[in-house]
């Protein structure tokens, strides 16, 4: 990004000055929220054995418990998705419902530590509605994927 700004400075100094001004404004508004996020992420990291819990109840007859586990696991998991793929692959090979795998991946879109920042930008009402919608739609996403995968 520094190289982009440096090149931009040479091509259009006023554009880069204005962009850097926006960057400083963003930094000033975000710093307090970032501190809260770091604190929340530290607290979430203390939840033990999440991987084993997911592995236990994702079979074909897991019922509402499987959905609850998939969605809760998705919401509580954080960090990049890539480290989670091997576990999801293992669960898939062990017969986990595609609906639950899809629901877990969709529910990961709920980022608890970042909700204060969303509320800061868009208000608490918006944040609650979007968050609850994503949790509900994780079920819809899961069911839809499972139905579509059954079609040949």
């Amino acid at each position: 990004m520094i190289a982009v700004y440096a090149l931009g400075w040479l091509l259009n100094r006023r554009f880069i000055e204005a962009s850097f001004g926006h960057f400083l404004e963003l930094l000033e508004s975000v710093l307090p929220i970032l501190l809260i996020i770091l604190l929340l992420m530290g607290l979430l990291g203390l939840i033990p054995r999440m991987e084993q819990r997911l592995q236990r109840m994702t079979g074909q007859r897991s019922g509402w418990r499987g959905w609850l586990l998939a969605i809760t696991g998705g919401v509580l998991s954080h960090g990049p998705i890539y480290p989670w793929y091997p576990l999801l692959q293992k669960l898939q090979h062990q017969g986990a419902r595609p609906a639950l795998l899809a629901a877990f991946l969709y529910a990961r879109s709920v980022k608890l530590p970042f909700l204060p920042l969303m509320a800061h930008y868009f208000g608490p009402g918006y944040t609650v509605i979007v968050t609850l919608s994503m949790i509900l739609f994780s079920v819809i996403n899961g069911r839809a994927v499972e139905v579509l995968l059954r079609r040949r």
Partner: protein
Amino acid sequence: MLGVMLLAGLLVEWIPQLIRHGILGQGVWLDSLLADVMGSLAVGQPIVSYLLAGELQRAGIALLPVTVFIVSWITVGVISLPVEAAALGWRFALWRNAVAFLLALAIGVVTVGLLRAF
């Protein structure tokens, strides 16, 4: 994170130009579709989508496409599709992302509708 905020600074300056050139600001539904595509192609922490969406809203983009942008950023992963497909299969990865793409629009409609209702 600082790099992303520097990028956000560039985009904040660029977005009004997108609107002036007619790329954004073409109406709620077209903007929503474009926002869905943009969010689907984006990579990075969700926090970045909140920052950029906030700037989109300040630039005059309606809440529906702003919401669709946020949701598609965090639920659709075009760039990570090959990795997901390698782990879970191409059919699973393609269908999951395709459904998530459509649901981003649905969540936008639901969110805006509920906010107006209450």
